[in-house]
């Protein structure tokens, strides 16, 4: 490559790199540095009172029982909600994709609507659904003889309620990606399988599933990363309660930062979350690669 071409290349990627640097890398590094300071409400009023405190935020954080509660809640949400969400998306993608399905466009749109609806409006409606006395959900359960459940007020039920809401809210996005994956599986393969006498289940196992493997890896990872960042649902539905049962790591970070003004501590939570998510991603990639082999 000639020198002028190299120069042209730099000119082309320059603006984008500058923007990414300014809005991604500088903030990330600043956040990392911030996590080693005691930046707090006094620091906002008088920056010269901010001190470099090394790892003290991290030490205090791992000694804080609330951090472990939040980590546990987040992991429950990721491990229970993530796979369920992927399963629902896959099911939803298979339905409108079935050859005998009618009104495909309509269903696709309907399934995708929650994704583009704002969470605050959704939360309002779901709070009615979850209402212990007047809620539709408890009414339906009552018909089959299950007593009323205080979905958002009972510490044991609050997280399942949040998971249910999150799945409903998000499955449409993964469904679209699955649909794209499904459509790229050649029809001939199904035809050949049918000729060989494979039933619906066998066709799914031996044609659809392998055909979707790459899509699946992609979805598994972005779902996991997305679910680790649980924030909006508990923030608008339960504010982290009852009894901290729905406090996620990001909600804890928000509280530390914007409720108690301990921005250094909040950054430390962010950095730890980043590490946890990186480890999670690596484990997933390792697993998927192992399976592919």
């Amino acid at each position, binding site marked *: 490559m000639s020198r002028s071409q190299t120069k042209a290349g730099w000119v082309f990627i320059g603006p984008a790199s500058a923007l990414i640097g300014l809005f991604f890398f500088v903030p*990330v590094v600043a956040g990392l540095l*911030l996590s080693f300071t005691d930046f707090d409400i006094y620091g906002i009023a008088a*920056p010269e*009172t901010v*001190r470099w405190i090394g790892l003290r935020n991290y030490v205090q954080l791992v000694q804080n029982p609330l951090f472990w509660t939040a980590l546990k809640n987040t992991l429950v949400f990721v491990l229970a909600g993530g796979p369920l969400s992927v399963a629902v998306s896959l099911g939803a993608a298979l339905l409108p994709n079935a050859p005998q399905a009618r009104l495909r466009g309509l269903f696709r749109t309907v399934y995708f609507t929650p994704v583009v609806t704002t969470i605050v409006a959704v939360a309002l409606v779901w709070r009615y659904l979850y209402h212990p006395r007047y809620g539709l959900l408890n009414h339906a359960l009552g018909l089959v003889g299950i007593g009323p459940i205080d979905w958002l007020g009972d510490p044991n039920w609050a997280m399942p309620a949040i998971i249910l809401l999150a799945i409903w809210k998000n499955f449409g996005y993964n469904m679209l990606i699955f649909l794209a994956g499904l459509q790229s599986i050649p029809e001939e393969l199904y035809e050949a399988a049918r000729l060989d006498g494979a039933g619906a289940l066998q066709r799914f196992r031996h044609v659809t599933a392998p055909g979707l493997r790459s899509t699946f890896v*992609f979805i598994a990872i972005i779902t996991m990363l997305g679910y680790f960042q649980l924030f909006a649902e508990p923030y608008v539905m339960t504010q982290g309660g009852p009894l901290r049962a729905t406090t996620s790591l990001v909600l804890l970070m928000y509280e530390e930062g914007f409720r108690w003004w301990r921005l250094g501590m909040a950054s430390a939570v962010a950095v730890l979350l980043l590490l946890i*998510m990186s480890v999670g991603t690596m484990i997933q990639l390792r697993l998927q690669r192992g399976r592919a082999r």
Partner: protein
Amino acid sequence: MTRPAIVVAPRTIRASRAILTASQTILAASRAILAASHAILAASWANRARTLAFLATPRPVIEAPWTVSAARWMIPAALVVLSLLGGCAGEGGRSPGTAGERVKLRFWAMGREGEVVTELVRDFEREHPTIQVDVQQIPWSAAHEKLLTAIVGGSTPDVSQLGNTWISEFVALEALRPLDPLLERTPGLSDTSYFSGVWDTNVIEGELYGLPWYVDTRLLFYRTDILAQTGRDRLPGTWEEWRAALRDIKTLGGESKYAIFLPTNEPTEAVIFGLQAGSPLLRDHDTAGAFSAPEFRRGYDFFHGLFREGLAPPVRNTQIANVYQELARGTFAMYITGPWNIGEFRRRLPAELQDDWATAPLPGPEGPATGVSLAGGSSLVIFHRSPHPQEAWKLIEYLSRPEVQVRFFALTGDLPARREAWSDSSVIADPAILAFREQLARTVATPKIPEWELIFKRVQDWSEAAIHGAMSPDSALAGLDREVDRLLEKRRWLRSRQASAENGTATTRESLP
């Protein structure tokens, strides 16, 4: 079987996967960065003058090396942001009103108060034709955040309602205007017109930052009929006698009944008993916890004893489906709560019980005089950035007039802050309210530092552990003190720093809020 066609692009997928992973993880970190940018913004606004002064005169004493570099990169950043925002702000056209032009005041009020205050404000505008008040109603749940965003973004209103426990935090952010100079020029308005405990919540380091608008406190709601069954016609005034009454109620009710409900998920009662025993809660100028000191210990022992003796059920609010129902059933006979429950009791207790409940000021360790309670409520504040402090003060002064306070009470049921309003017959028409007047005269402000709310929450965590027997009260209070000391480390450092600056030749540039 061969791989289907989609796999022809594994490289693309791998690449996009990598990018996604990276960007998603970065997203997480960038949330923290939000914090950083907010902070820079805030620093620039709160310290416009100071930052410039800082540039002009290099400071000789700086402890942490990082601070220097931090200040260095923050100042240019702050200046850039400043000039950008300054440009925007200039277009707002908020120049002081010239003759004939109406001054526009922005007034933020929360919840129900925000809904009804417009009615009062209209009369104010009639009285002051040159002032136009723009009331913005803010839901309580969003109020704190909205105010902070406004401070960071430099878009604070002129006047706002502010929960009085928030004042120290906003003073720490240097967002509020001291009101003493305005108060001095106002005849007929002084601290003597207010309940002293509530007034005190507005005074930070000797300066007044808010004028109480309405007040609230906690006291005892109880079933008079159940108390009467123990042979008492009125509530005893000392802890000892009170506990004896609670024991009698418990004996009367048997296994399934209790005497009093003290929800374990609220730190309020533990703190109230501590205050009653004379605990300052924090010591050494609010730089360390005083929870294991004898005073708080005494209050906590009394509180904890109520659970140990089975006089109070060790449950949370959330475990009692309906407090009113349980009170009606006699599951417990007493409940410590606030003025909003007067209406609830009237509405929710069955009609036949309406003559069988009453309110009473809290008993104290040595008698009624020591039966103090919390000084709650909302104040009216003026923001530093308001270009119209004089007009803003006129509005606050108007809303503080006894007759306007009485009207406000009629509209909201909020208890008037002005003592004069309490002699109005419409305010004291309800006998349940009378006890509040007595209790309000015996209120104490909790520590006025930005960390208090966080400490308050911690009191609950540790206290709950002791109530459930996870640890002894001794070790719970010691643990609480250790944690509080850790939370207040910054204050201790700021104090020692300030002290050394005062001892040296350098003049202090800021005081500890």
